[in-house]
Each structure stands twice: as structure tokens, then as C-alpha cells.
């Protein structure tokens, strides 16, 4: 068959696996966005304003797909940087652990499992599950997210417990170590914990 050919400057392409679109992987492998330390906000004299600024910095983490994909509103988790609906279809189920016959644990294990046949991995963590529905925030404003975090009816946490969750929870921590092919959450969990503490210390103000 006669083919229409387009001349390539270089005719050689390096690939490790047949036909995989490597561009996608490299985009997702982009380094994490940075996160400022609390000290960077000390120049803000007004305590309330400083508190709001600290929360807005934390917001980079809350709204990052790595974190918000498992804080969906509704019953379906999201996937990827484009935050598309989880495939295969799954639902929240009891305790955010999925439905009978199709629990999170049907696929997700204790740690990431690299795919054997192609690029990527299936993410894993011993506590893999969805955040409670009341803590869904995909598409919400930072002000709304802040209000629901401070509302113990919805967050099921005191501010101190929230700080601990942000600073040291294992599943939350996965967001900074999501494995090859996934962009980590901004900064580090340590920094996120420090920001949370500083926000609480400044009165835990919310953006308007």
C-alpha cells in the first residue's frame, strides 16, 4: 500500500515500551508545585489576613487533584490530573470503602502496584478509601472548603485533629508520594502540617 509520508527531522525515537505515549507520562511526572512555609507569611501584619493567606496556601493542597480526587461531592471518586470520573465505575459505599462486590480493596492494595504490561501503577495504601461525603469539595471555593473543615458536624474533627490529619495521616501522606507517573501534591506533608498549625494559631480564619 502506498503511504503518505511526512519527513521527520530525526527518524529515531526512543521508547521503552511499545507505542506508549510518553508525553503523557512526562507531563504527569512534572515536579510538584512548591508550597510556602509559614515564615513566608510573617510579613503580613494583620493576623486575620495572615490566617486567610495561610489557608489560601493550604488550598493549593486541598484543590490539587491528588487530594481532591478522593474528596468528591457525590459518590464517584475522580482520577488523574484531569479529575475525570473513576474508571471502572465505583461508588462510595459504606465507610467510603466501595460497594459490595466492588470495594476499593477489589483493586487497591496496601501500596502502589506497578502495572506489568504498561506504564503506571495502581495506587495503594492500607487505608485506601474516600473521604466522607460531607468532606467532598470538588468544585467548591476555598471559602466553602474552609467553612466545612471548621464545622465539626461535617469534618468530624476538631482543629487539633485536623492538624494531625494533615500533618501525619498515612493516606493523606500518600498524596506526596503517589509514585511514578503522578504529580505529587504541592510541597510536603510536613510543610502542610506546619501551615495548618500556623493557620490554627492565627485564629483559623476563612477566606471570604
Amino acid at each position, binding site marked *: 500500500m502506498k503511504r503518505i509520508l511526512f519527513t521527520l527531522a530525526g527518524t529515531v525515537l526512543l521508547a521503552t515500551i511499545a507505542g506508549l505515549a510518553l508525553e503523557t507520562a512526562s507531563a504527569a511526572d512534572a515536579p510538584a508545585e512548591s508550597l510556602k512555609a509559614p515564615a513566608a507569611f510573617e510579613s503580613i501584619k494583620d493576623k486575620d489576613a495572615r490566617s486567610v493567606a495561610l489557608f489560601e496556601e493550604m488550598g493549593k493542597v486541598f484543590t490539587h487533584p491528588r487530594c481532591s480526587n478522593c474528596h468528591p461531592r457525590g459518590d464517584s471518586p475522580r482520577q488523574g490530573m484531569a479529575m475525570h470520573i473513576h474508571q*471502572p465505575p*465505583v461508588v462510595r459505599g459504606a465507610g467510603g470503602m466501595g460497594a459490595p462486590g*466492588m470495594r476499593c480493596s477489589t483493586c487497591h492494595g496496601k501500596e502502589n502496584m506497578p502495572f*506489568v*504490561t*504498561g506504564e503506571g501503577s495502581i495506587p495503594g495504601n492500607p487505608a485506601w478509601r474516600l473521604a466522607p461525603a460531607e468532606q467532598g469539595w470538588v468544585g467548591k471555593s476555598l471559602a466553602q472548603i474552609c467553612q466545612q473543615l471548621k464545622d465539626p458536624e461535617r469534618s468530624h474533627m476538631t482543629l487539633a485533629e485536623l492538624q494531625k490529619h494533615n500533618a501525619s495521616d498515612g493516606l493523606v501522606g500518600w498524596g506526596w508520594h503517589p509514585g511514578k507517573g503522578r504529580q505529587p501534591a504541592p510541597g510536603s506533608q510536613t510543610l502542610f502540617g506546619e501551615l495548618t498549625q500556623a493557620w490554627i494559631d492565627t485564629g483559623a480564619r476563612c477566606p471570604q
Partner: protein
Amino acid sequence: MAVNFTLNGKPVSADVDPETPLLWVIRDTFRLTGTKFGCGIAQCGACTVHLNGLTRRSCVTPVSQVGGGTVTTIEGLDGPEAKAIQDAWVDIDVPQCGFCQSGQVMSAIALLREIPKPSDENINQAMGGNICRCATYVRIRKAIHNAADTLASTAEG
């Protein structure tokens, strides 16, 4: 390194790389071929087994994670739900090419064990991870309902 677990009721030991997906241990080592390779990335469900009683995609399960656990493949099924599901599958001729059906059957049985009388919504949620390229879904749904009815009438009788 040997990994020890229970496979279809019998203690087994697999001397394989601990990262080997359970699927290939089941198939290559133990030659139980009812569990299929379909996609390798937990999208299709053809490799579904029961791990400690719950559905598990064996293609993304390192065998090391199974250590000490109990694995049931389609060859090792037992119990009223399994019989009801498989009989219902045959009764209305669910399979076409049949390649995905082991996985479908394993998911359906797991569903009935938790929800004896599932709704259409329960079925959608439990079976949504099992692809059938022949699209036998109409009959899969009907067979699950039929099996549930059989179980209910058996329990009453």
C-alpha cells in the same frame, strides 16, 4: 522466596518473585486457568478471584500481599450462592465467547453473599468493573436476579 497461602481450600507454597501478580501464580504455577488475563490494569475484571472472601483483581495483586490469606478461584467455588449463580448462568445461556465469564461469576457470587436479594443498582455497582465485550449484560443481570430467587425459594423451602 516462598509465599504460603490457601488456594481453593488447600495450603500451597509458591516459590516465586514476591512481586509476581497473583494472576500469574494461579495460572503459571498452579495451572488453574479459569482465571483470565484481560487487561493487566484492573479495568476488565477477567482476573477476579476471592481473597479472604472478597473480590480481588489478581492482575494487580502482588502475591506477597496474599501471604497467609485465602484465595478462591472459579475452580474452587463452593456453597449455595455459587451453585445458584452458575446454574442460572447456564439456564439462560449467559455466555457468548465466555472469556470474561469466570470473572463475572466470581463478582456475582460475592454480591449475592453480601446481598441475597440485590437491586438493579446493587448489580450495577458490583458488576461495573467486569467488562464483557460480547455485551452479555442483559442476561448477566437476569441471571443474578434468577439466582437470588432460587436462593430465596430454597431458603423458604
